[in-house]
């Protein structure tokens, strides 16, 4: 198939991945999540090296920044900040997660072992102001991300579309690297849109260095939603196009 493919060196990247404890994960609903999401175009050519061959780059390439705060969970309140690069697996829009920073150690371990999130422990904050919504993350006290939604404007939650995530992870059972598809469901109770701005980004903290170059801001959204983290249904061989390398692991 002619479209371009990602060129991520998965073996080199495997240094950053989590170990997933098989694919029998049960669904989990997290109520009342506050979700900040920014879309920003990035330079195409270097970004191809930030998604695995199982994916096609988006046209144009863009990055997705998420800072999400969950007020309640089996592990208590927690927040996650992550950076994804958008693409397609086959015909489906997906975001490849470069790194996730979590501020709750137990929640982070669960996200890593059950859904393959590439978790780092750190500090994450989501701040709601009248003029903006600010997401921040730091590692060992060093700020690595500050991103904002500016000029808050109410929209319907139904106008917001989130794309599913792809996590490169190592399967505990056979030790193989796999890309795990995680496609949460969202029940929206509030939606907003505004301009996106990244005030601070330490690309090394997200393992992308100079390969990720921010270009053209697209939009930012904020939502309050119940988030259902799903059963894992599909995994992909990271080094084979999704049309050939996708395995269904649950109904």
């Amino acid at each position, binding site marked *: *198939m002619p*479209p371009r493919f990602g060129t991520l060196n998965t073996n080199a990247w495997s240094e950053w991945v989590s170990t997933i404890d098989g694919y029998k994960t049960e669904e989990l609903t997290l109520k009342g999540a506050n979700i900040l999401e920014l*879309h920003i175009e990035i330079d195409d050519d270097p970004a191809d090296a930030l998604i695995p061959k199982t994916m096609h780059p988006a046209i144009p390439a863009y990055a997705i920044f998420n800072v999400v705060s969950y007020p309640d969970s089996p592990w208590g309140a927690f927040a996650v900040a992550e950076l994804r690069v958008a693409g397609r697996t086959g015909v489906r829009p997906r975001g490849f997660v470069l790194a996730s920073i979590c501020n709750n150690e137990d929640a982070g371990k669960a996200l890593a072992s059950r859904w393959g999130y590439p978790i780092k422990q750190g500090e994450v904050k989501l701040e709601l102001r009248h003029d903006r919504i600010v997401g921040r993350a730091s590692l060992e006290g060093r700020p690595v991300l500050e991103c904002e939604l500016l000029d808050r404007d109410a*929209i319907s939650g139904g106008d917001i579309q989130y794309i599913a995530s792809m996590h490169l992870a190592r399967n505990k059972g056979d030790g193989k690297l796999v890309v795990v598809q995680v496609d949460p469901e969202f029940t929206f109770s509030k939606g907003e849109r505004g301009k996106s701005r990244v005030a601070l980004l330490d690309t090394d903290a997200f393992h992308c260095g100079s390969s990720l170059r921010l270009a*053209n801001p*697209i939009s930012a959204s904020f939502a309050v939603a119940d988030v259902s983290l799903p059963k894992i249904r599909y995994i992909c061989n990271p080094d084979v196009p999704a049309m050939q390398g996708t395995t269904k692991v649950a109904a």
Partner: protein
Amino acid sequence: MKFGIFYEISVPRPWGRETEKTVYDNCLEQVALADSLGFDSVWAVEHHFLEEYSHCPAPELFLTACAMRTKKMRVGHGIVVCVPEFNHPIKIAERTAVLDILSGGRLEVGTGRSATWTELGGFRANPDETKKTWDEFVHCLPKMWTQERFSYQGRSWSMPTRTIVPKPYQKPHPPMWVAVTSPGTEIDAAERGMGSLGLTFGGFAEQEEKVKRYRKIIRNCDPVGEFINESVSTVNFLYCHEDDAEGVKVGKRLTGVFNYLAAQLLAAREAYPTKSYPSLGLLPSLRRDAAGPGDESGAPEGIAMGNPARITRELKKWEAVGVDRVNFLLNALETVPQEKVLESLRLFAKEVMPHFQGSTDTAAVAAGGR
């Protein structure tokens, strides 16, 4: 029912020096043959930056070349983007008038607003504004075509009094259409007395509802132009072959490649949350309907692939739900060899067209032609 052909002009990688030219040459050869076979019209999209999927950013040039190679076929913008960052309305009025003159009054003007962030973002257009600017444009165009002197003070654009020349060859002006992808746009078309240029494949039930709604509303419309263009067209794929299994097999490959390419594009709504784009545009329905489960042969319902009998049967269903014209996509990424595309057109004209009243008065003769 009438039949037309519809071009996205998709060009496969690698984009060597000759690749683009070969694809354009192939399209023009198909157009010339289709004209001689009695196809009614040729339509071309306006798309920008949609790598591989569509290399057709200047449809007025392609359509001019089509007009120079044909005698009867109408030439249609499917569509011209009515967003000021893409096209100034004065330029649209002027270009379309010239094309109408050069084609001897064979122009159809489809209008629309783009559905991808790839394009909207590329021109730095605001997705919240496109429906509004489209509405302004379609109200202005007929006046620019018909009034000797024209001035306008509007929301998205304005101009002092000038004489916009030339005027179209068709009087009072060419028929106007609206691209219908988002739900409810058929109502916009009907309320303005414009043709409904369907750009999604949509199932029969969905299409029947849309057609009913359109025909009911257009009876009481307030036309933007000087006449009402009550017409419903839809788009489809075409691959016709004597052997049904071969026809379905190649047809499915064609639809599969097209849908795969379409899915790579970044829909406006996916990148930019807005009520202005309530659906993802044409992409999901393309996949849903043209890659549907199908019957025992595997041919999706309503798609013109297979042998002449099967295609006739499917097109009769479209006719029954009130569609006036079907425009066919003939290829994607040159998946089907050019000679096979031409054979498919010839067979369709010879075996399928005669079953449809009004499709052509020359089909039977022309099928034995080139």
